[in-house]
């Protein structure tokens, strides 16, 4: 592959041609892998979703029947609601707490390095482990939080709404520090002298935050929100471990996975997964459109 370029390194025309060829060569393995493993299954899922199944046995083409069955299923809508509730509440809380953390860390000189190391700890922990950890802390036995808060045998995980609260809380614990890290990086790109002149002009701390920090931080905020939102829409690990989907915490990812593992029906499962795919990627695309073309280009440093 390199030899072709080696023979004519200095002939301008051939060199740019071989560079373009090299670029194709370099891109091919990644693009092929992603297309084969990510794109192809989605198309295949769409095909599967058009066929009717009895258990694992195909019963022939059914058109959109699986979809009508899916969207008239109450379980599907309660999964949609659970996913959206989880996404909106967890992303909102993570953003506010993460921004708070980032502002605190930006001000501190001493201890910033240690704190930044600590902030990586929740990120590096497998979500399944944080789920188990917080499951036990919320659980009636040993009842750690109940003891700290002095509220007896409150059953956080055993009733609607509070079960979702516990799951959202766990996600916020794990991810708010990560959001802080992204926002801190954004904060550090804002030049100091802007604040200096604002101060000279008599702007209060709140005015400086609202009129300078927030608008200048906008790109970092949008990127953090994009990846957090898409990630939250895919939530699976936390409710799977903490409640197994009981008490209105079954999310879309759980629903699809169960149709494959517990209720083997490839047709309906594929219809659910196609709908989930459209929802998640749709939200992602809306975000990216909002961020604009520069974002797509800058993500890859090009």
């Amino acid at each position, binding site marked *: 592959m390199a030899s072709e370029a080696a023979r004519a390194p200095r002939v301008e025309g051939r060199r740019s041609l071989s560079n373009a060829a090299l670029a194709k060569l370099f891109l091919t393995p990644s693009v092929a*892998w992603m297309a084969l493993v990510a794109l192809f299954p989605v198309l295949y899922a769409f095909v599967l979703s058009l066929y009717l199944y009895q258990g694992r046995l195909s019963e022939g083409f059914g058109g959109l029947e699986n979809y009508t069955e899916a969207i008239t299923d109450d379980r599907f809508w309660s999964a949609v609601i659970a996913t959206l509730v989880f996404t909106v509440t967890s992303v909102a809380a993570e953003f506010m707490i993460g921004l708070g953390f980032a502002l605190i860390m930006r001000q501190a000189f001493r201890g910033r390095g240690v704190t930044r190391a600590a902030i*990586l700890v929740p990120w590096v922990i497998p979500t399944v482990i944080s789920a188990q950890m917080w499951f036990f802390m919320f659980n009636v036995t040993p009842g750690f939080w109940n003891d700290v808060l002095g509220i007896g045998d409150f059953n956080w995980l055993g009733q609607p709404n509070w079960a979702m609260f516990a799951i959202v809380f766990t996600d916020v614990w794990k991810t708010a520090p990560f959001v802080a890290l992204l926002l801190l990086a954004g904060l550090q790109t804002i030049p100091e002298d802007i604040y200096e002149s604002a101060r000279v002009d008599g702007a209060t701390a709140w005015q400086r935050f609202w009129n300078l920090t927030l608008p200048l931080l906008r790109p970092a905020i949008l990127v953090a929100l994009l990846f957090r939102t898409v990630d939250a829409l895919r939530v699976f690990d936390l409710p799977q471990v903490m409640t197994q989907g009981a008490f209105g915490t079954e999310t879309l990812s759980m629903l699809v996975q169960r149709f494959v593992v517990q209720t083997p029906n490839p047709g309906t499962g594929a219809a659910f997964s196609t709908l989930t795919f459209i929802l998640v990627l749709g939200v992602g695309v809306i975000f990216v459109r909002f961020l604009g073309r520069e974002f797509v280009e800058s993500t890859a440093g090009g």
Partner: protein
Amino acid sequence: MGEQQAAIVERRPPIQRIGKALMLMLIFIWCLFPFFWLISTSLKLGNEALNSPDLFHGPFGLQNYKSVIEQDFGFNLRNSAIIAGTTTVFCIAIGALAAYALARLPIKRKILVLAGVLAVSLFPPVALVPPMYEVWRTLGLLNTYPGLYIPYTAFTLPLTIFILSTFFASIPKDLEEAARIDGATAFQAFWKVILPLAAPGVFAAAIITFVAAWNEFLLASTFAPRDKAVQTVTVAIAAFTGSVQFERPIGTITAACVIVTIPMIILTLIFQRRIVAGLTTGGVKG
């Protein structure tokens, strides 16, 4: 809250300095406190201590760790290490090429390629579950290592590409051009000049890729749920669940969590700077 560093240069009253230290402490406690609970619980022995909310309610001992090891947790650790390691090698090997092409080489319709890579990073992995389960069943890839590292590589590639191309783009073009003037081909320039300079970035990308693959649960629990020869750490930890919710063996689970957590925390602390650089320049979730 909207204060900034310039203000710190002025002398500040001690109360404000103490206030700042306290707020840093808050972040610190937020991040680390649950591990204190985890370690304390994993060391407790007997039902009475394990069911007590008191962190210091003994007796303490290493019994829980012994029972974790007796349950062949070592197999799970090995499986996760092999699967995450293979994913990392594949991602870095083919991701580095793509990242270099994106950062330096002329690409037709580059925006399309970038949009495609971005789309995969926004992709819900669960969309893969029904079709891939059927395909893997046919190909006999359920309960195998490739059955997991093949999809992991696809899903982690975008992240690897983003991080690496940012690092490649940050290396001065002059160095490369000097090499090209000396007669090096584009490939040699990449291999001999760019790659060594990007080593820290490659390393950061490798750690982040490894962590992402190590922590994966959805596909692992679907494609290799029970077979001890393939089951990963995350699936094993979730599967300690008893038949009734509150019958989960708390001692064993917390001990297993500590075993997995400690090496990862050490890894994080050692490579803290590189990980932060990788996560923030890539701008993408790990």
